[in-house]
């Protein structure tokens, strides 16, 4: 083989790799970038991280925490996220920014890691992490072997998105913008459903307990305070009983348990404050919950107020954009 041929082959392979990298970026869903992009690119870090399911994603607005308390936080919670995945999200998040407090929504304490219907949602976070040992460990810990390829090499999945992209039928997975710091704002009321509270406790082990124990241990190791949170809103008695039971696990592993169903001063009316029967909060409900959590964090953890400090000017810019966005979504 002549030198010219070898050069041509190398050049061709290089061109192919470049094209594939470009295609990889172009074909991916942009939900992950909008949701997690600010977290991975931030230089100032975050004192509080919110993790868990979409109930948490819709319930806490980091920009309102900033506006009212000057607390820097990021909402890493995601749709259909089981606690085993939350553990991996927190582990990887702590490699980038070490928080002081990690608040974990326990709504999915009864879901096991291998519930296949939750797999597609894991893409949003996993796709945003570059291929690394951490990513491999996260994928290995939370997905069956048959799914590894599409999570470690998302192009194997997204290359067939061309139809959606050509026809312009791609739909958003989350209503989130980079300046919202990972949270979501969705409008609406769910007045046709009813809610009743129970304080009964589920007996016996639940699939998410082990993950909660590991999360608590990991937080302690890193000097982070773990807070397990039961968020108010629609929930069946069974779901409430299972969330109530987390108190025992929290005691057992030295974590704080914050059951906001019974929080004094937090008046959540699911019919007025949720936009659907699944307990997702609308902007009103989110503002009430965020205000309560902000006061609780200030009182119990004495987190710093960064407002007006050098290096945090972009938070103010984000706040303006967030408020304009909120006014558009929720004009009343």
């Amino acid at each position: 083989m002549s030198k010219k041929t070898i050069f041509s082959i190398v050049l061709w392979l290089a061109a192919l790799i470049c094209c594939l990298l470009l295609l990889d970026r172009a074909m991916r869903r942009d939900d992950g970038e909008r949701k997690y992009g600010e977290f991975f690119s931030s230089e100032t870090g975050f004192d509080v991280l919110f993790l868990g399911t979409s109930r948490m994603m819709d319930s806490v607005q980091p920009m309102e925490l900033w506006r009212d308390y000057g607390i820097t936080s990021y909402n890493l919670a995601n749709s259909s996220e089981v606690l085993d995945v939350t553990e991996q999200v927190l582990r990887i998040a702590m490699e980038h920014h070490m928080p002081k407090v990690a608040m974990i929504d326990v709504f999915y304490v009864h879901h096991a890691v291998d519930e296949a219907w939750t797999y597609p949602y894991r893409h949003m976070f996993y796709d945003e992490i570059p291929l690394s040992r951490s990513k491999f460990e996260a994928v290995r810990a939370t997905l069956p072997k048959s799914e590894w390829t599409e999570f470690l090499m998302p192009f194997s999945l997204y290359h067939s998105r061309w139809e959606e992209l050509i026809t312009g039928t791609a739909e958003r997975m989350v209503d989130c913008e980079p300046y919202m710091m990972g949270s979501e704002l969705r409008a609406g009321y769910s007045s046709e459903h009813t809610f009743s509270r129970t304080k009964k406790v589920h007996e016996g082990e639940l699939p998410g307990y082990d993950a909660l124990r590991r999360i608590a241990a990991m937080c302690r190791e890193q000097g982070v305070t773990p807070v397990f949170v039961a968020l108010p809103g629609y929930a069946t008695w069974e779901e409430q009983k299972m969330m109530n039971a987390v108190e025992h696990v929290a005691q057992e592993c030295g974590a704080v348990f914050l059951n906001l169903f019974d929080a004094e001063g937090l008046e959540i009316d699911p019919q007025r404050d949720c936009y659907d029967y699944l307990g997702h909060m609308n902007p009103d409900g989110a503002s009430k919950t965020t205000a309560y959590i902000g006061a609780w964090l200030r009182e119990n953890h004495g987190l710093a107020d960064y407002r007006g400090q050098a290096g945090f000017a972009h938070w103010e810019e984000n706040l303006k954009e967030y408020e304009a966005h909120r006014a558009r979504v929720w004009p009343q």
Partner: protein
Amino acid sequence: MLFNSFEFLIFFPVVTLIYFTIPDRIKWIWLLITSYFFYMNWHAEYALLMAACTVVTFVCSHLINGTKEPKKRKAALWGGVVFNIGLLAYFKYTGFLLDIIERGSDLLGLGVTMPKVSILLPVGISFYIFQALSYMIDVYKGRVKPEKNLFRYALFVSFFPQLVAGPIERSGRLLKQVTAPHKFDWERARQGLLIMMLGFFEKVVIADRACMYVDAIYGNWVDASGWQIALATVVFAVQDLCDFAGYSYIAIGSAKILGIDLMTNFRQPYFAHSVQNFWARWHISLSTWFRDYIYFPLGAGRGGKLKQARNLMIVYTVSGLWHGAALKYVAWGMLNGALQVIEGLLPPPKREPKYPRLNLLAHILWTDFLILITMLIFRAGSLSTALYMLLKIPTEWSIEPYASGFGLAQAVCTAVCFAILFAIEMIHEKRKTLTEMTDRLPGAARFMLYLAAVLAIIVFGVWGPGYSAQAFIYFQF
């Protein structure tokens, strides 16, 4: 291991790289090891079957060659044939035979209930058994000398590029090639890669996409309109060609890179001007196998048209059974045989056609029409379903079409691919190769063309887990 899998994309370059770097004397051993590895990736234990087939045909061939007594030679030959056909029959036809017995007893009013069996069909068993049988028969006929080394012979039976879907090679061509050491030749490798690229295009871009529409319509034929069934049958005809020919191209291309020439398996079958001509172009390695080992021994066309018709019907009935263990395959084979018998009975044209090209086109279209009918039988769920579907085409042409879920973008993509395939088939029909065509281009244009082709296969190919927009729509929490 499938050709269109990640495993193969790693396996093949590694095999090739090592093959061309190790000493010549162990090259064939490397190919044997990797061929068994390739096969064992599926169900490791079924490699024993292939090994058994190899040993039996090897021993029988030596028994045949070791004696001059016709009876002993014949006994050894039949011993090998019975063993191998028995193996094939057990794995492929047990369920079918039991079903036939049950149906037959129902017809006679005996009401015999046969047990329902579920036997996993070993991948490629029909291919390697036919290849091994051809070797043994060739030894019997004195066409080839038996191979002395069992392991070299084992490589002939198991050579991985053509192991699971052919082409079914003859020992005279392949045995020496696979066991001889080959040096790396960039020009051969380039040609091989181009052939593989064509194979991947046909398999993952055309066949696997066309399959979505065909499956949707054939799976819901009761709700489909006549024109949808007709269209799905045309699409299936292309899918079937691309699926099989694509796989063959990948086999031929990968063997070529290793320095081994495999036979052409498909030669533009839909440009055939008669059903007989179609079978000279479709799955050539199997057609010629049947010709050489069944049709000729039966007497071929000797003894008059009636005997020829009988022989054709036998060959195509067996061919139908080879394709699958179901009545519809038997019917499909018999119909193909019958069409050829009828063609043979038709008187030749009395004078040259006035417009030869138009005449040829008319013959091609008529042949394709006949082949499409056979294809419908081949693809339908059963013989009775096929008959209902055939009836539905003219009678329910304009009823409300079934919502197949095959979007406009998918349809446009498929149509464009069909057009590209047609152009490629035209090039091949003119006895030109893609390599020859692309070699005429300037270097930079060739560079870009290859790049665009690979990227198009990657993006538009049906591979990987399959993206479902529905799975990503946020409806849960």
